[in-house]
């Protein structure tokens, strides 16, 4: 962080008049091949969904989706050539998302470890212990 910011401060300090923004233009080829790759992945993910891998279905689909997402982010969104900080921003948002889902599931998937009944869910919240149903 220190190195990065210091160079930045320097650049900032010695900026010369007119320091213009020069765009970083990518060759057309990159866009087209990215697009083709995305289409191919879409076909693959649909095709794969007809095969049953059991518990792995979800993970395979997510893996393909992540490949597609990386292509979009790196190439269409230019992250590959951008300031590194922008990539850090994106990656950290995914980390926080992972924390959110992971920690929440550490609760929801582990209820009832100490007292098994805490894992169950009453069907009718108005009558959780089935007292009133026989009379109705």
């Amino acid at each position, binding site marked *: 962080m*220190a190195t990065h910011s210091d160079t930045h*401060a320097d650049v*900032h*300090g010695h900026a010369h008049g007119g320091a213009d923004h020069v765009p970083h233009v990518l060759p057309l080829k990159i866009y087209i091949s990215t697009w083709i790759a995305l289409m191919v992945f879409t076909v693959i993910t649909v095709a794969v969904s007809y095969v049953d891998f059991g518990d792995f279905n979800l993970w395979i689909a997510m893996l393909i989706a992540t490949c597609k997402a990386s292509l979009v982010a790196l190439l269409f969104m230019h992250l590959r050539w951008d300031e590194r900080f922008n990539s850090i921003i994106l990656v950290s*948002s995914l980390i926080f998302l992972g*924390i959110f889902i992971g920690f*929440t599931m*550490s*609760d929801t998937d582990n209820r009832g470890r100490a007292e098994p009944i*805490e894992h169950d869910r009453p069907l009718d919240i108005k009558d959780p212990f089935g007292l009133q149903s026989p009379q109705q």
Partner: protein
Amino acid sequence: MSQTATVDHVVAPDSGKGAVDYIRNGKGIVSWLTTIDHKRIGLMYLGSVVLAFLVGGLFALAVRLELLTPSRTIMSAAGYNQAYTLHGAVMVFLFIIPSIPASLGNFLIPIMVGAKDVAFPKLNLFSLYIFWIGALITLSSLVLGGIDTGWTFYVPYSSRVSTTAVVNVTLGAFIMGFSSILTGLNFIVTMHKLRAPGMSWYRMPLLCWALYATSLVQIVATPVLGITLLLLIFERAFQIGIFDPALGGDPVLFQHFFWFYSHPAVYIMILPGFGIISELIAVHSRRKVFGYKAIAFSSVAIALIGFLVWGHHMFVSGQSELAGTIFSFLTFIVAIPSGIKVFNWTSTLWGGSIKLDTPMLYALVFLILFTIGGLTGVFLGMLGVDLHLHDTYFVVAHFHYVMVGGTAVAFFGGLFHWWPKMTGKMYSEKGGAVSAILVFIGFNMTFFTQFFLGSRGMPRRYYNYLDQFQPLHAFSTVGSWVLGAGFALGIVTLLVSLKNGKQAPANPWGGLSLEWQTASPPITENFESTPVVTHGAYDYPLAQGQKEHA
């Protein structure tokens, strides 16, 4: 860091002679409502949050008055539930969260880093308008049936049972969330991109670090509040079932969603307070901050670890034992960086030249109250002990020690510290000092009592309480009047200064950071020309030797 070694002093541009200050630059209400000057926007935020503080404070006094006797004192149970809910919602969403970042932060950050404005000035004004709109929608509930869910909006009470204007308040909070996000975004980009030449990260005042960390939290956590409130609104309007147990949903899941935001939000509230205290202690002791990097990084660490501990609000919610254990452990870890800060502040006093100006008095009040708030948090982080203390007055006392004794006191301390800069007026030191002392006494009377109540088993949000608790409740209520008087006196002191105050010098406290190197009040673009920074914000002994800044 090589730069910290090359010490010089700030190339101070002359204090804005010739240019007109930001307050007089543009007349009439329209010039204020259309301004993109961060200082004017900060000032408008300041007015708004102080107003919200008064509204929330009146609700607090009403709640305390009701609790003078075990059953009805001045209002019905329904009225009481609305009063404390509105107290909470107004204080949290309209006061504490925007208080320091949006008012003082907006005013100070660009000046402190030597910029002319925040990175996105129009966005800044836009977020003020969003805040006003959200606040109005929230407050519209006052005439449209109130709200009685508690500020936590727990389902299924909020989604199914309550007949009050839940949607207004949640929609208002949802909208204000955007304001909070945009402010945070603006600050981060400002600090990354608009620091003046020579202003390296480690030369920034610690308030900037604190607000940087705060902004991170605002950006990451607030959207989750957004989706939570949106789902709640849909749940209430259409019964979609995600949180509704009758339809197979899970009310505990709502709590995860809510606290994923609202626990980090606690750090949105307290981190800026930390930043202010770092400034006040350093400047009023004219002492190089002890452990600059430790304080700076602990802010960031708190912000990050703060995302890992939300489940400690849910130890008895029906959450799994495993989750409870993980969350409890991480809660203890997050205590460390807060502790580091307190030790560093205390050490900064060592070898300083301490003057007990009003801001410094507030800083000392903060130090004591926050220490109590932090240490009592340890009780609540302990799994077994929380079984007894959860949802009792112990919790109420603990978070008031942090939120009021911490944030609100820091806010007032900061207000007194930068008031001369913001308005160009000096206030009565006597008024300020008396208000700090009254706040200290009143606060402890009100809230220390509540540790007794909570330990002894008094649950929170109780209208009718067990008769045995009355003496303590009555004492607490009396304390609330002293506390109210303290804050009121503080506000009056400041307002009176607008009329009678002496003209403030550019640098009344002998501060070294950039805001003290420009005029009081500053000109519209803050500095006559872009400042070049050659030393850190607190390099006191060396600057003292050169003596230009007094």
